[in-house]
């Protein structure tokens, strides 16, 4: 891992150490978030798949009935019958928070006066299959809504999960190793400087000692000479 391009100073070392600490903590938190999200997501996706299969099967039934109905009735009559629906749907959207992901929650209310009487036509000119199709469609409508909510939730969670996963990996494999390498580099550099300083000091001390000794020797010699001279 390549180290960062920084000055090897004590101040930089302190700030890098702080950053490393933050990064490690962030990594741990994000990892926890990822694991929890993954748990939620897998359950949700599994349920979503099941629900979708179910809805698709039942919609197939509805379509079958419609096809039969439209082959029995003329297209005009069919369209005329369905032109003015009795039932309306009012949709309320609220939010739910899953691991800081905002997902929509759909709440619906039908506006038919009588829930049993949803057929917007008289029974005289239409076929029984059309009744079946519409009543079944009305039955699976809550499932369709549920599917919409689940599918959106899955997509949103997937996006969040991808982001979190990337962050965790970036921290684990790039940020943290790089910080560690840089900290080590600075520490070694500082130690090296320290040692350099130490040897320099020792050297200087030696030199000063030598000088002092030489001076002392010279002084002594001078004193001896003076003594010898005075004795003569």
């Amino acid at each position, binding site marked *: 891992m390549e180290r960062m391009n920084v000055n090897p100073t004590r101040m930089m070392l302190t700030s890098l150490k702080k950053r490393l600490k933050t990064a490690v903590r962030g990594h741990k938190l994000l990892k926890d978030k990822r694991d929890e999200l993954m748990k939620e*997501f897998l359950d949700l996706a599994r349920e979503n798949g099941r629900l979708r299969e179910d809805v698709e099967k039942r919609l197939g039934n509805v379509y079958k009935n419609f096809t039969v109905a439209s082959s029995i009735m003329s297209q005009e009559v069919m369209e005329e019958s369905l032109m003015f629906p009795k039932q309306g749907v009012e949709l309320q959207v609220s939010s739910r928070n899953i691991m800081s992901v905002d997902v929509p929650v759909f709440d619906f209310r039908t506006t038919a006066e009588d829930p049993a009487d*949803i057929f*917007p036509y008289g029974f005289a000119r239409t076929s029984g299959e059309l009744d079946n199709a519409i009543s079944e469609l009305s039955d699976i409508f809550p499932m369709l809504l549920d599917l919409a909510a689940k599918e959106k939730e899955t997509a*949103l969670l997937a996006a969040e999960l991808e982001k979190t996963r990337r962050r965790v990996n970036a921290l684990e494999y790039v940020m943290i190793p790089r910080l560690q390498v840089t900290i080590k580099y600075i520490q070694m550099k500082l130690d090296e400087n320290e040692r350099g300083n130490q040897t320099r000091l020792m050297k200087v001390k030696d030199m000063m000692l030598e000088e002092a000794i030489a001076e002392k020797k010279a002084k002594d010699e001078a004193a001896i000479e003076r003594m010898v001279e005075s004795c003569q």
Partner: protein
Amino acid sequence: MYKIGVIGDRDSVLGFKAVGLDVFPTEKAEEAKAALRKWAEGEYAIIYITEGLAVQLEKEIDKYKDSRLPAIIPIPNKDGPSGTGLNNVRKSVERAVGADILFGGDR
């Protein structure tokens, strides 16, 4: 107050009108695209779209994938499911986990 819309070929979506949803019958991708855009900007929270059209409008649909609303949901048309819908779920799993580990990807 939000609305629910359905886009698809006439025979497939007609029934949804009877249960009170807004319907836009079309088989042309261009028309569907315009309707989708209009609805998505408007007050529609859920837009069901038949799988055939959903495949053609994939780019357009992907735009709304990461926003909270609307939810654009592919549904099978009258010829039965083509697998596009389930594929979407599979794609989500792949995006999240990195590999499809749930639906035994047949790809």
